[in-house]
Structures are given as C-alpha cells and as structure tokens.
C-alpha cells in the first residue's frame, strides 16, 4: 500500500525545486557546535517539552559530514575560530548556519582581545538568534526562518556556488 495506490491512475505535476526544497526543509540535520552555555538551551530545544522533532531537525549529528545546518551555540575565541571554520568547510553543500546567542553573533559581553566579535567575520551566517542565552523557542523560531529560506531556494543556487 504505497503512494502509488493513493493516487490511483492519476498523476501530479510539480517542479524539481519544489520537491527538493520540500525534502530539504523537512529534514535539516543540525551539527550542534555547543561551545558555551547556549548549548544547554540548544539541548533543551531537543527535549520533549520543546521538541525540535516537530520541524524535522531532531537528528543532531556530531559529524559535520552528515549535517546541513551548523548551529554555533556559544562564545567563539580566535583560537576556536579555526575549528569552527574547519567544521563549516567539512559540511557538504547545501548548508546553512545559525549564529545562536549574543556571543556568537557579536562577541556579546566579551569585548576582549581573545573573543571574535561575531562569527560572521569568518563564516557566512543565515540567521542570528538574539538572547543571552536565547530561549529554546527562539532557536525553534530560527529553524523556522531557515525552513522558509530553504523553501524559497532553488537547486541551481547551490550549483552556482560551487
């Protein structure tokens, strides 16, 4: 009893972009780069109360090679910047980045010689999440924003990039 029987003898028309984007947006696998207290809120976004699985992002992959959404949750120091960039480079295209919390977005309260004043200085960021740390709802909101962005994207967008 598969999809074939549901349609009977009829057929549907659509575009490649619509199908691919639909598939991509409903299974965004995050790479959780939890490097500070924001990681705790990210973890609770995955728990049954907030339930990130409602949006198809519950598969937290601890390998960049299997994920397509990088969540940078925490303070990035200059020494850590190389690691963040390396993880980003290891992710296969297409990929998106969420900068979670004040520290990742702007350095936050650490206006100091050792902390990068915003990760957008070395990786492209799609969505910034405000808060110190942001509530889990706020992170879910960012995932919804990414879903919207993915939905509007075309397969050819990523062809051009490479």
């Amino acid at each position: 009893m598969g999809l074939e029987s549901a349609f009977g003898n009829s057929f549907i028309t659509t575009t490649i972009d619509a199908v691919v984007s639909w598939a991509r947006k409903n299974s965004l696998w995050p790479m959780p780069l939890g490097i500070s207290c924001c990681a705790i809120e990210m973890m609770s976004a995955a728990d049954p109360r907030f339930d990130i699985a409602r949006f198809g992002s519950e598969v937290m992959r601890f390998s960049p090679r299997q994920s397509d959404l990088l969540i940078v949750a925490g303070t990035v120091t200059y020494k850590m910047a190389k690691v963040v960039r390396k993880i980003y480079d290891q992710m296969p295209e297409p990929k998106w980045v969420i900068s979670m919390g004040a520290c990742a977005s702007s350095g936050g309260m650490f206006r100091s010689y050792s902390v990068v004043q915003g990760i957008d200085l070395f990786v492209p960021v799609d969505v910034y999440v405000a808060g110190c740390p942001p509530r889990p709802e706020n992170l879910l909101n960012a995932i919804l924003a990414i879903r919207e962005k993915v939905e509007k994207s075309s397969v050819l967008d990523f062809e051009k990039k490479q």
Partner: protein
Amino acid sequence: MKEIIELKLNEKFPDSILEKIEFRDELTLIVDKNKIVEICQYLRDDPELLFDMLIDLCGVDRAKRNDRFEVLYNLLSLKNKFRLRLKVRIDEKDCKVDSITSIYPTANWHERETYDMFGIIFNNHPDLRRMYMPEEFEYYPLRKDFPLLGIPGSLPLPKK
C-alpha cells in the same frame, strides 16, 4: 606556626627573606628569586613544616614599580592546616625565575599560564609553551601595557 616558619627559614636561608607581610592572619614572605627552588624544597621536605601542596602559582604586573613583575606561590601544609604565600620580585630586564616543577609537578601548567600571560620565563621548565593563546601570538595579554581589545591583526582569522 608563623613563628616556627620564620625562625626556621631565617636560620636556613639568612638574607633570603626580604620582607614579611602579615594581613588578616595570612603570612606572606617576599623571598630572593634565586633561592626560590631551595626554599620550596625545604618547606616541602622539612618534617615539621611539610608544605606538601602547591595551591596556586600566578603572576602580577605592578606596572610602575622598579621590579615590575611578581610571581606568587600559595602553599598549603595539609598536616599543619596552614597556608603560606611566597612572593618573588622580578625585574623587567631580567624576566626570568627558576621553575619549581621539579618540586611540585602541578606547577607545570601554572608556570605555562604565567609565561603565556606575562612573558615571565621559567628556567628549567620541561615544556614552556603557551597555554591559552595560539603559539604564534607575539604579545603577553595580562601585561598592563597590553590594550584590552588586543592588537589588530595579531590574531589571524580564517578567510571567509
């Protein structure tokens, strides 16, 4: 306990105890930096004193004073339940002091941290590398003349 320590140290190392500070029941001794290894060895091994634990070791930058830097040693005697603080003063031109890693192995990383932050060199240290900052970093961030926001361009970022 304080009297015993002072008496014993003065007897064993005459002229090496430069100053004695007592504040709120805490004893601080400023000692000769060339004698620090011998003094620590003696404090640890003497059966009456037995300062068998190094709680912390850190540096201080006094900026305008002649002997600009200080290195602090916080010792604890578990047997006597007594804490002692030693200080050595270091001139900027001769920014070196002997390592006490051979006596307290825990001093290894503490001395690396002090080297990383203040640029104080510890002679005979087994592995004197930077602790927090990248290896190629050229400055010492906890020195008073280092700007809080760092020196632009001194820490490279990966290309976008």
